[in-house]
């Protein structure tokens, strides 16, 4: 059975090595191409020094194991210094019956609540040592609030799937956005969702969602309230002071993409105001306030109605799961 390891922290270009070279240097390569025991890649090879590898073949194909072809790598660009792949599909890397391993500290992620971070479309084994995270739902007042997106989706009718979540690894659905907060903005859910920003003169702007391994931005001050604070997980809700000089309160804090992450605080109350609800920490739900906070990983946003994303959406099929790490959200 061929195994593909996805992950990197650095890069080299134009590398051509034998499988035994990789094995002696990194301790993980057992690749055999064309029966010659050579691994030939025209393009760029990204790798770290701890034995994890991530290939980006120039022609998009590579030969691994038993005459097995795969498009090895999507864009290898680092995001906030983090090795990552966005919105991937298992069959891009492996064929039916084979194993896709996600390395330690590697992020598989999504920036859309309707697109899972990882789609499993073939019978296979997924071994996760890193982070698989869905997109969070935006907080209210910036369009409609949203539920969080899934981390993994097994396509309908696909059987023979095994998911092994190892110690230290995370599979996390995005947090739900905070529900409507009136004249203050609600917090964005964990998973990089923006906080809500009331649309009007004097309103605080919603905080932007955080990029990989980063907190979301704080919501802006409104004429009558403080913005919620960005969170490593859910963002805090903005506050509103009915006695304030303006119509609108603060914007919601953005949700972050830190696992496990800490929720952002809600905007503080003035003597006659209403504090914003804090964002959910790790996988906790956001809570209500002048404007509710966004949900933590896999958890609902404050004020109900907007659910966390599933960790694993099984599409109604059975699968095998081993968890020695952390799973946030429904399976």
């Amino acid at each position: 059975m061929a195994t593909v390891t996805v992950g990197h922290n650095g890069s080299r270009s134009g590398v051509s090595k034998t499988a035994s070279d990789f094995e002696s240097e990194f301790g993980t390569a057992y690749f055999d191409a064309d029966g010659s025991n050579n691994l030939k890649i025209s393009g760029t090879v990204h790798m770290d020094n701890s034995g994890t590898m991530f290939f980006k073949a120039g022609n998009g194909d590579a030969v691994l194991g038993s005459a097995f072809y795969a498009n090895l790598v999507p864009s290898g660009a680092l995001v906030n210094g983090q090795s990552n792949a966005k919105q991937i599909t298992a069959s891009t890397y492996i064929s039916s019956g084979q194993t896709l391993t996600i390395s330690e500290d590697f992020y598989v992620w999504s920036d859309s609540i309707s697109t899972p971070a990882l789609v499993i479309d073939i019978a296979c084994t997924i071994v996760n040592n890193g982070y698989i995270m869905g997109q969070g739902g935006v907080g209210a007042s910036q369009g409609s609030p949203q539920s969080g997106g899934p981390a993994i989706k097994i396509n309908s009718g696909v059987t023979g799937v095994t998911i092994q979540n190892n110690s230290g690894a995370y599979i996390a659905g995005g947090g739900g956005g905070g529900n409507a907060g009136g004249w203050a903005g609600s917090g964005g859910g964990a998973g990089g969702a923006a906080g809500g920003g009331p649309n009007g003169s004097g309103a605080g702007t919603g905080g932007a969602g955080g990029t990989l391994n980063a907190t979301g931005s704080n919501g802006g001050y409104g004429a009558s309230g403080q913005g919620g604070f960005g969170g490593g997980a859910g963002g805090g809700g903005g506050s509103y002071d009915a006695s304030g000089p303006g119509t609108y309160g603060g914007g919601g804090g953005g949700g972050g993409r830190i696992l496990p992450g800490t929720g952002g605080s809600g905007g503080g109350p003035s003597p006659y105001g209403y504090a914003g609800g804090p964002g959910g920490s790790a996988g906790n739900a956001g809570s209500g306030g002048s404007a509710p906070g966004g949900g933590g990983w896999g958890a609902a946003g404050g004020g109900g109605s907007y659910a966390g994303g599933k960790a694993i959406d099984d599409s109604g099929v059975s699968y095998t799961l081993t968890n020695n790490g952390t799973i946030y959200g429904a399976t």
Partner: protein
Amino acid sequence: MAYAYIYKGVTYTTEAEAQDAAAQEKVLLENNPNNWIGVKEITSSDETGWVIHPTLLTDEQINNIDSTKTYLAYSVAGNDNVFPLTAAEVSEKSLEFRTHYAYNSNVNTILKIELDADDASRWKPVSTITATADLSSYLP
């Protein structure tokens, strides 16, 4: 000046309507666990990996759970996802997850709001009202 009342994210025209919704919520909290917990049967073992069966147990199945089987349970409002669980452990988790749900939904609180004269979708909070139905026991 127009007012309205929000309960669990739903806006009602009168306080009486919101109070009725809170009373109905109390019935739900006693009888309908699928609002706060998802439960699936699992088979196999830690050694070989657990087979997760896709069908969610119904409210009735959770309230009368089969003690011969093993389960996975997750919180609808929170993020918890735990397995393997015995039937007794599922019942314990159900109470725990109900608290998450009740807290997240502010089940004991109705928010009175003042609607914007020009755009009724905009509002500002006026005061909070405790639900007449006693829902405090469901909260942390």
